[in-house]
């Protein structure tokens, strides 16, 4: 009875029927209370977005798997300290982190959000070393500016690592190492070896437990297809783009970068649970061959124990198992895909036994759409198609084993990967990851031109995906090249209409370009796509701010903050609105919130600098601008403000130097020239100032403040006619009311001796 119930539960999970799964699982736990079943129930809850239930069930459990799941539920409920103690108990300092790479990754995130950068970096690096295809960890390292070059991380060593994992896996099950497409034989062999299956199960579990904390914006969250619960397994599906013979290919669902196994731990657990039943064993065995997988080194540990507590390393590799696994993968991916957008942890649903072909197809389309990174590789699709066909063909044999749920691993397809195929597959994946990783790392360091060049090296199919295009747009934005950014982002929208990643930056680009029509249109689309995404509300706030309705804009940004309090940009935008409303205290608080979340968010440093500049606390202002400058040394705007602050501190030579640098950095930016003229004027170097302003006049001929400043200088020089002329032109160019008043007053004073000269 237990086995049947477990089967039903996993079936329901695979089909995304959560309520059914939860109900049946509760019956299962009531009838056979055991930790395994409890884990299964927790997994059901997690997939149904009820982290709180999972939390309560798993409280106090000790096994590694349970601890991992518990940590995930704590993380989702924002109880970071509990999550941390679960993953690495205080009384066991040297203890093993459950679930290998996934566990390290989760721990890294916890450390990051509790402001312990060094430990976070340490764990992300560990996770990457265990599983080099764990893109999410690399991304986090980039954000923390602690990433090594992509060529190192995704290099030779990584390829060997991947290969080792697969080989290990293969070793564990002698059947695995079949380099032929001998699915049936494989399966039959597998059938025989229970041990192997168990081991495999464990492996899969390991793979599955990769959780990806929800707060992943955009990064690659490709939810790794969780291995089917039944097949204990291969949660890690690696997607290989290589169109080489299917056998070695596992359904590459996602292009390498997104290997994240977003799988609920539960799934792994489930598999574990299913292990109990002979069916699952069978399944797992079958699955095992397919999985190219990963548990490196821990194979040994997987002994006859059903549950592998030691987290064998779960590589986040998405191992696409051929055949059933593939199916599972694809569906899983699909599931993950949807989930990833909703910050779901591991919602991998495994495709169940249902006709593989169906699943596969579904999976394929899902996977295609839901790949957040938007990297779709054609090769990959081909691979998948191939696999599907393979699986279908192998299906009949699988059918015989009606026991298997998904495991019909018969169509093993991918499992039999020979060593050389693994290596070549791995290196292709890694090659792609290298380029993307390098691009991302450079753009996090704000070396945007280099990042753009790196992205251009990507193959066309990868470049034209929403993740890459958004990154390109972001890079242009940082270079203050708003037109190009607009182009890149609109391409990204066309390629992937539903993706919200990076749309907040796009709305800022449109704000800068003052395109209120486009911005309103964007906002409408975003809100209708997802009302609960922080990016949509940020965009709406930008729209109102463009119309100068700062209070409504502030409300929208606050909504965005409520939706995701770890979204640093929303806090910064709130800060900007507070400043516009002249509420400096709250502005400072908002900027500081943003910095707490991401201390490399240079916009927040800039915002603080501006507040202090307004409040005339010039030293603070200079410090903050300098911090912003250190983070993004190429932004001419920041440089010009740093110069202004320096000038206010009377360090005018440094100010002029920085202004010159700013002018060089971006010829199109008129601001540093204008500021330089200002500084020169206050240093009484009138001729130099006039020279600069003459240049500026050609550059921006309709800017009234240029003429006004020139008029002022001529007035100081007592060249009244010229001053009059320039003031007149300035007035013609329709300056703001305050300036009109100032200029007119200046004109009047032109005919009056300058004794009572005030600041004019």
């Amino acid at each position: 009875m237990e086995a049947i119930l477990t089967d039903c539960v996993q079936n329901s999970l695979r089909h995304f029927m959560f309520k059914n799964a939860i109900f049946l699982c509760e019956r299962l736990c009531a009838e056979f209370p055991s930790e395994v079943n409890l884990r299964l129930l927790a997994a059901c809850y997690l997939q149904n977005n009820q982290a709180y239930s999972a939390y309560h069930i798993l409280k106090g459990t000790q096994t590694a798997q349970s601890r991992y799941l518990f940590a995930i539920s704590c993380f989702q409920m924002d109880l970071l300290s509990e999550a941390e103690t679960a993953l690495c108990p205080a009384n066991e300092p040297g203890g093993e982190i459950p679930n290998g790479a996934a566990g390290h990754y989760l721990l890294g995130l916890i450390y990051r959000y509790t402001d312990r950068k060094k430990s976070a970096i340490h764990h992300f690096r560990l996770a990457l070393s265990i599983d080099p295809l764990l893109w999410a960890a690399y991304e986090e390292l980039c954000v923390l500016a602690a990433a090594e070059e992509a060529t190192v991380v995704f290099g030779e060593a990584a390829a060997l690592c991947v290969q080792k994992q697969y080989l290990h896996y293969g070793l564990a099950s002698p059947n695995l190492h079949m380099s032929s497409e001998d699915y049936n034989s494989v399966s039959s062999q597998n059938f025989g070896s229970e041990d192997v299956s168990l081991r495999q199960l464990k492996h899969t579990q390991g793979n599955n437990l990769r959780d990806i904390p929800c707060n992943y914006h955009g990064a690659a969250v490709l939810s790794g297809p969780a291995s089917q619960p039944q097949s204990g397994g291969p949660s890690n599906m690696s997607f290989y783009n290589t169109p080489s013979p299917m056998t070695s290919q596992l359904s590459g669902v996602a292009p390498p970068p997104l290997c994240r196994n977003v799988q609920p731990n539960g799934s792994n657990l489930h598999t574990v649970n299913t292990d109990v039943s002979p069916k699952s064993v069978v399944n797992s065995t079958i699955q095992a061959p397919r999985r190219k997988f990963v548990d490196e080194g821990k194979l040994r540990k997987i002994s006859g124990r059903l549950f592998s507590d030691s987290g064998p390393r779960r590589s986040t590799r998405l191992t696409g198992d051929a055949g059933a696994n593939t199916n599972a993968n694809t569906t899983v991916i699909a599931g993950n895909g949807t989930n990833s957008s909703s910050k779901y942890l591991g919602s991998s649903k495994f495709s169940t036994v249902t006709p593989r072909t169906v699943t596969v197809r579904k999976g394929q389309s899902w996977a295609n759409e839901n790949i957040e990174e938007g990297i779709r590789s054609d090769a990959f699709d081909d691979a998948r198609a191939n696999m599907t066909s393979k699986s279908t063909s192998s299906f009949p044999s699988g059918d015989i084993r009606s026991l298997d749920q998904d495991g019909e691993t018969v169509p093993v397809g991918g499992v039999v990967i020979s060593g050389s195929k693994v290596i070549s597959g791995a290196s292709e994946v890694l090659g792609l990851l290298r380029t993307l990783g390098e691009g991302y790392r450079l753009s996090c360091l704000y070396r945007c031109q280099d990042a753009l060049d790196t992205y251009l090296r990507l193959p066309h199919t990868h470049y034209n995906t929403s993740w890459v295009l958004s990154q390109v747009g972001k890079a242009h934005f940082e270079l203050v090249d708003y037109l190009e950014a607009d182009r890149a982002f609109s391409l990204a929208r066309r390629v992937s209409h539903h993706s919200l990643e990076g749309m907040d930056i796009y709305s800022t680009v449109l704000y800068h370009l003052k395109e209120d029509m486009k911005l309103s249109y964007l906002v409408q689309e975003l809100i209708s796509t997802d009302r609960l995404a922080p990016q949509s509300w940020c965009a709406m706030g930008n729209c109102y701010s463009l119309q100068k309705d700062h209070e409504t804009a502030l409300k929208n940004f606050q909504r965005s903050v409520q939706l995701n309090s770890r979204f640093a940009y929303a806090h910064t935008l709130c800060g900007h609105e507070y400043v516009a409303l002249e509420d400096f205290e709250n502005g400072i608080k908002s900027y500081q919130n943003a910095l707490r979340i991401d201390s490399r968010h240079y916009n927040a440093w800039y915002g603080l600098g501006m507040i202090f500049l307004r409040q005339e606390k010039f030293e603070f202002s200079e410090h903050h601008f300098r911090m912003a400058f250190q983070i993004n040394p190429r932004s001419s705007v920041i440089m010009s403000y740093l110069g202004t602050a320096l000038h206010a501190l009377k360090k005018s030579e440094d100010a002029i130097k920085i202004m010159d640098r700013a002018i060089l950095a971006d010829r199109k930016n008129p601001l540093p020239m204008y500021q330089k003229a200002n500084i020169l004027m206050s240093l009484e170097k009138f001729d130099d100032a006039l020279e600069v302003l003459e240049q500026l006049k050609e550059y921006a001929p309709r800017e009234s403040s240029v003429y006004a400043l020139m008029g002022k200088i001529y007035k100081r020089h007592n060249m009244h006619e010229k001053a009059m002329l320039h003031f007149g032109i300035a007035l013609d160019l329709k300056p703001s009311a305050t300036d009109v008043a100032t200029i007119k007053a200046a004109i009047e004073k032109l005919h009056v001796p300058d004794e009572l000269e005030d600041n004019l």
Partner: protein
Amino acid sequence: MATESSESEEEGKITGGNQHLIVEDDLREMGKKAAWSVSSCKTGNGVSSLRDDNLETYWQSDGAQPHLVNIQFQKKVKLQLVVLYVDFKLDESYTPSKISIRAGDGFHNLKEIKTVELVKPTGWVYLSLSGNDPRETFVNTFMLQIAVLSNHLNGRDTHVRQIKVYGPRPNPIPHQPFQFTSREFITYSTVR
């Protein structure tokens, strides 16, 4: 400033009124930062009705003339425009007729800066605070007092439905002598 008045001298007469409140873009409403008080009011029709953005509610005074609305700021602000919503058709003898605007540092040194006579107003009435001199575009003050000196048909008490006070927007970029007008400058002038 869109004034619907035909005033040409200091003491002008204003007739009519806009149904819609239209104010130039470079002005912003400053009333939120001020403390508003009135010389007297009837229960239920207090000073909050002047600021609730609801034209159905009104302030009704309850004492001797002149009736005063005091607007006090924490620091000196530049003000350019005062807009009132008054309606003869609805309020008849409660409609204000002579209004005097005073400014100063506090109650002790208010000076009249503008007097206006309204003749059957029916909507938003714009009272510009600028003088003729370009240097007097704004009134830089701590306090503004709007005094209703008399009403239509010699009514004793007055109804005012809404009051808004406008001043210039500050320069978004601090420490700049002038504001930027062209798109290139504005685009590059801030980081968002």
